[in-house]
């Protein structure tokens, strides 16, 4: 009896050893593969990086000469414009859903709540090219904005709106109910309560949502591929065509075959995304530090 039992324990331990070895292996493999991809682009792109790379614009044509100055400008415009459309709308909608509709028994309000939850859940899984399609048909052609920063930022706003609404809702829901009760019990109106108590404590969460949106715009390519036009010149108005850094990587790689320049631009993008992630971590660390004390 005893030896066989020990034998079974040994066998079970052996199984465990195999399984754990596989987990270690996949952990290492996952890291290695992903680091290889990003590392390759950054390492091969890095030698191209110099001050002039950031300060000169692409020369155009098939050579791929020049830097990325105009694409930095276009990216910045696009991020600002998109957030200017999406942030107030998304955060406003989030406030309405959590602070007003959520506290109501009104049939219309609850239906509204359910519809928007369904809508944002559905849209969260919709491929971005569909927003490109929508933006192209509505803003570029039907509304005659053409391939422009305006069309692209409107399409981009539609893309990130569900994300912004969602994160805003979550940030607001995380505010303890006791804060609202205390404020209302002192004779504050709903809006005073929201402005003076709820929004300040939800600020880190709302900020995280906005930074997430910025990251999304920085890395999105498909939507802007079909709405922004791709001109390498520095945009001069909201109706100018342009290309973001991510789009620039695509054009350099696919049209001019300037791989070194494409990788240099890619490296810049990767670094930007790292910065965005660090910002989110910093904000959420402040968030948890605030709630702990």
């Amino acid at each position, binding site marked *: 009896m005893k030896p066989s039992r020990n034998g079974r324990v040994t066998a079970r331990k052996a199984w465990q050893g195999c399984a754990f070895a596989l987990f270690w292996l996949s952990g290492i493999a996952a890291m290695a593969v992903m680091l290889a991809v990003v590392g390759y682009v950054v390492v091969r792109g890095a030698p191209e990086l110099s001050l002039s790379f950031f300060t000169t614009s692409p020369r155009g044509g098939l050579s791929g000469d020049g830097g990325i100055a105009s694409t930095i400008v276009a990216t910045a415009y696009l991020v600002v414009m998109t957030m200017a459309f999406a942030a107030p709308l998304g955060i406003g909608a989030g406030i309405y859903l959590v602070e007003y509709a959520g*506290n*109501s*028994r009104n049939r219309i309000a609850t239906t509204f709540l359910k519809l928007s939850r369904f809508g944002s859940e559905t849209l969260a899984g919709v491929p971005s090219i569909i927003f490109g399609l929508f933006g192209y048909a509505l803003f570029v052609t039907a509304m005659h904005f053409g391939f422009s920063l305006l069309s692209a930022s409107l399409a981009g706003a539609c893309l990130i709106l569900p994300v912004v609404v969602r994160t805003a809702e979550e940030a607001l829901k995380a505010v*303890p109910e*006791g*804060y*609202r*009760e*205390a*404020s*209302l*019990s*002192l*004779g*504050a*109106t709903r809006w*005073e309560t929201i402005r*003076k*108590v709820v929004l*300040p*404590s939800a600020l880190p969460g709302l900020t995280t949502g906005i930074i997430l949106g910025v990251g999304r715009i920085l890395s999105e390519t498909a939507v802007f591929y079909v709405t922004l036009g791709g001109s390498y010149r520095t945009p001069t108005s909201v109706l100018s065509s342009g290309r973001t850094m991510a789009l620039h990587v695509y054009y350099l790689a696919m049209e001019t075959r300037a791989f070194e320049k494409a990788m240099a631009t890619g490296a810049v993008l990767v670094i930007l995304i790292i910065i965005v992630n660090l910002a989110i971590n910093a904000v959420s660390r402040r968030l948890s530090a*605030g709630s702990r*004390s």
Partner: protein
Amino acid sequence: MADTVPRLRTAGYNLYYGSFRALRDITIDIPENSITAIIGPSGCGKSTFLRSFNRMNELIPGVTVTGKVLLDGEDIFRADVVALRRKVGMVFQRPNPFPKSIFDNVSYGPRIHGTRDRGVLASIVERSLRDAALWDEVKDDQQKSALALSGGQQQRLCIARALAVEPEVILMDEPASALDPVATMRIEELMQSLKQRYTIVIVTHNMQQAARVSDFTAFMMTDGFRAGNLVEFGATKQIFTTPADSRTEDYISGRFG
């Protein structure tokens, strides 16, 4: 009881959460400048009843009420809710200071109601903190975050915050249940000193506390599945020594609940 003016009065008052009737036909007169304790087993409707006096139940979707609630003889459902809550302050079970400085917590109410002058605010804050017996502990450090205070200090801060809008009535929902015995004692002492100027209604789970601090006691209970019955209301001494209703006696002597 006959010689004091009722400050709060309910008459034939019912409250429903959707179709669930949480308060049944409650009629009560709460005298001014006194402490009234509401006692009873969990879930019998004490908090719901307390929240009726400043219409906080309206924040819960699906709540409907019938009957009357009067403050100084005026129907509170006709009054402006903001004005009502200014007159009827509330202290909650868990201390809930805003994540702001001590000063900003206490001055929150006056600011909302239109006081802008820094000097006036400072004197309101000082007076309220003194009344809440917290001044000596925090006077040099009013810019400190309220969240850095101890639980008992936080609760006294919440009391100061409620006092700062100069209410007539203060509602307290188990204000000491989250606190240790020493902090509880301080809150009880504080209530004694406040009752000279305010009408206090307190919900408590703790019968010793009710007996120690209150002048009047209301006993509520759940009857079978039916919550929200006011069984008996009277002077605390009488309720605890010669209750009129046998259910009150059973509860007080610990036979159920």
